[in-house]
């Protein structure tokens, strides 16, 4: 440990107590991971419990010019909360107070370490909840949701995290506080809260968050559409979207994945099907009933073998439990699992799934698919064994081809898991050098020394141009215009 780190560790321990500073290797190793496949060992892990303690941590790091990496629950899937280049990991999961539940104004104010589901549970007696519902909601923090701009099955109708954040208070790496937005919707000046949301902890550490609370709907209908072909399921998604129906959730599981889920959860997905769609409609009783019939009709027209309606709350919960625990179920059938995240126009789902399948076959890897079909947000799952030499490399290479294929049809390289250290080198697939330069300038304003969460979200400049060239040469689905700047 460097002299600077030793001094910082001593000062932090004196101020926060030894239970709030992990400096032993065995302690630090627990924080080498997040939910993704990358690892890196932090030099120190600190657990501030208050705003003042957080400020002290940030100021200490500034004084000794040490790197800082914010962390929530560590469920992120793109390596965002990993200390890629070492430094101090600032674990915010002990700043977990709900500061205000203001039902009259439909707002809540929370510290960043509040777990997503805890806020919804706290607001439930008043009939409200926090709408973004990542499948990890039992564990992930709202600070992490803000940093990743997380989505979830029900964000199709209700919007992702940024649509529910109205205000943030955050500390810059030099120790200055900034506030952004508020509880009001139209505050004066630029929308810095919107910019900070999704910035993956590379601009500021968020210390308080004001969010909208959403009224629970009166009625819900949950449908399970069962298919003998993946194409028919994909066509149903397009049919529902283009008919102008917006279900609250529209999720797809392919045959391989749903069988893994059945073995684990017994959710009630037919094991002999090629794919299922889990579709939920919410609203007034008078709205969901005709909506349900319309969706059922479209699914059957598109080739569904059967469309089941969840009979009661118990069956509905079981169907959702299968979806929400699908990553866990998948994790049981292979030693290692790589969860990908890409987005495509909703009209291209069938085509992309076929392309992904072809890539998997070429790389001789097992692929599963479970995703937010209504948003076109794919999550191909690569099953592999990290202990076998070369398997991780093959899994990563195949995944990158699939993500390149998403970019090539006008999609994005991430719909909700973020760029982190997983995809920083893939940014040139969808952004030009000038686009990235503008983002670097934004970062330089907040984080001029680059001490906050380095090595995340943006590629280094030189690497950027090289990566772009190599992808143009190698990506099988790329065309020259789509690789460089397919978007806008």
């Amino acid at each position, binding site marked *: 440990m460097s002299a600077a780190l030793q001094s910082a560790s001593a000062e932090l321990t004196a101020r926060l107590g030894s239970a709030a500073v992990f400096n032993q290797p065995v302690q630090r190793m627990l924080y080498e991971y997040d939910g993704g496949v990358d690892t890196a060992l932090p030099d120190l892990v600190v657990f501030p419990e208050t705003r003042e303690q957080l400020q002290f941590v940030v100021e200490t790091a500034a004084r000794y010019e040490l790197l800082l990496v914010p962390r929530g629950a560590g469920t992120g899937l793109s390596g965002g909360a990993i200390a890629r280049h070492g430094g101090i990991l600032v674990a915010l999961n002990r700043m977990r107070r709900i500061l205000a539940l203001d039902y*009259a104004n*439909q*707002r809540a104010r929370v510290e960043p370490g509040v777990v997503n589901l805890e806020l919804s549970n706290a607001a439930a007696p008043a009939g409200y909840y926090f709408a973004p519902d990542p499948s990890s909601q039992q564990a992930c923090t709202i600070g992490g949701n803000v940093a*990743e*701009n997380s989505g979830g099955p029900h964000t199709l109708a209700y919007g992702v995290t940024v649509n529910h954040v109205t205000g943030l208070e955050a500390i810059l790496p030099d120790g*200055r506080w*900034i*506030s952004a937005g508020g*509880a*009001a*919707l*139209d*505050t*004066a*000046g*630029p*929308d*810095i*809260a*919107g*910019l900070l949301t999704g910035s993956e902890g590379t601009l500021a550490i968020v210390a308080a968050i004001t969010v909208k609370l959403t*009224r629970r709907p009166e009625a819900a209908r949950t449908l399970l559409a069962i298919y003998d072909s993946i194409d028919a399921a994909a066509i149903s998604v*397009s049919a529902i979207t*283009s*008919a*102008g*129906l*917006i279900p609250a959730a529209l999720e797809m599981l392919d045959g391989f994945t749903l069988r893994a889920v059945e073995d684990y959860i017994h959710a009630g997905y037919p094991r002999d099907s090629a794919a299922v769609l889990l579709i939920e409609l919410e609203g*007034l009783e*008078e*709205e969901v009933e005709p909506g349900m019939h319309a969706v059922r009709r479209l699914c059957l027209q598109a080739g569904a073998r059967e469309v089941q309606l969840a009979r009661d709350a118990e069956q509905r919960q079981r169907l959702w439990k299968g979806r929400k625990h699908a990553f866990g179920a998948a994790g049981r059938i292979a030693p290692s699992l790589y969860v990908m995240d890409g*987005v*495509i*126009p*909703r*009209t291209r789902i069938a085509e992309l799934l076929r392309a992904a399948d072809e890539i998997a076959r070429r790389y001789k890897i097992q692929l599963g698919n479970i995703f*937010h079909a209504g*948003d076109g947000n794919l999550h191909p799952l690569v099953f592999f064994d990290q202990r076998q030499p070369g398997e991780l490399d093959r899994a990563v290479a195949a995944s990158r081809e699939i993500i390149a294929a998403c970019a090539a049809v*006008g*999609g*994005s390289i*991430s*719909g909700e*898991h973020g*760029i982190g250290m997983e*995809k920083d080198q893939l940014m040139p697939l*969808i*952004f*030009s050098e*000038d*686009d*990235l330069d*503008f*983002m670097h300038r*934004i970062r*330089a*304003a907040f984080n001029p020394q680059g001490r906050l969460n380095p090595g995340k979200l943006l590629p280094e400049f030189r690497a950027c141009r090289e990566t772009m060239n190599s992808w143009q040469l190698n990506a099988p689905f790329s065309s020259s215009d789509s690789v460089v*700047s397919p*978007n*806008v």
Partner: protein
Amino acid sequence: MTTASASNLAAPASPAEVQACLQEAIARFTPISLDSSISDSSSIRLDLSQLRAWRFWEPDDLTCGVEAGLTPRDVQLRLSEQRLFLPFDLPSPDFSLGAALAGNHSGPLRQGYGSLRDFVIGIEFVTGSGELVKAGGRVVKNVAGYDSMKLMIGSRGSFGIITAVNFRLFPAPAPTATWLVPCPGWEAAKRFRAAVMASYLKPIAFELASSVQSAMVPPELAPPHHAQLWALVRCAGEEPVHHRYQKELSEFARQISSQLVAIPEDRESRFWDEWNAWPASAPLSFSAPPELALRALPLLADHARSAGLAFGFQGRLGLGVYRLALRPAPAPEWILAARSLLAGLGETWLTVPGAASPLNAWGPLATSRAFLRELKQHLDPHHILPDPFGLITENGTA
């Protein structure tokens, strides 16, 4: 490109030409202005109305991309062919999309659909360094890179000149119905709001105004008593949904000793056009957490009355975003006094975004000026972009 260098007016016909204008501005150390009322030789005024191309249009994916000189009306017209729409109602449908984005304008439909911030999925702009860049993309969900869309929307050109925008679209709403609810006072308005918000109803518009022009409410529908305030609810859905609203809203109205006035179907669309057109003159903007706004507005009304000003307002009862009209226009001292009057209440924002003003039109900004100045410095290093918030110059222009 149409340029008239004598008056320094440029009307670029493509984003590349906008880029050329900004590069010229950098070379000449001359700032860019987007304000049609400014025509001096010390700035290059950009008229972006010729940026009118459609970039893409995917009706089945409910997305489209257009250049910023088109108006919402232009876009709406084409979308309606496929029964799609942009839930975007403006005081004037002739605003260009670029202006609407830069000013973060919104109307009553924000209650049901959110604001531009919620349905812009991609943006292209020319930076203060003269580069043509983009953020976001063409798909409805996307977290790759910083969300510069948020930085551009509402910042009035401070960080770049918007040239094109991609939208997520919505299916045209099912048939709508609209009811007026005369509210006998502020307490009644507050109770009516609370009842609607606590119900399962999800109106697409939920408004409150100090008055309705007589043309909007035909005499045969005028309510029996003189209302102090008017609430307005619009829903979308089929017949049974309308009945449900009618039933519940009648009960909520009864609880405040009022009654519903249904706007006849054949007048509904005109009614909303007129509603959106109010007030014609440049107003003040006021925003607060929605319930708190109902405590602040009566204070503002009294404050206006005591200064001999006529006071009117209209806005989003569900969301706490209002436009205020005062006649004659208030002196800067009135606005400063109003801000300090409200300061004790909690979080309130009283701004003068529509007009150049001798005082700082914005009051305190949500993010510290010192930090925003640094951000501006990074993104507009040559000081050629507009400075509406007064980050570089002492006083901003609106």
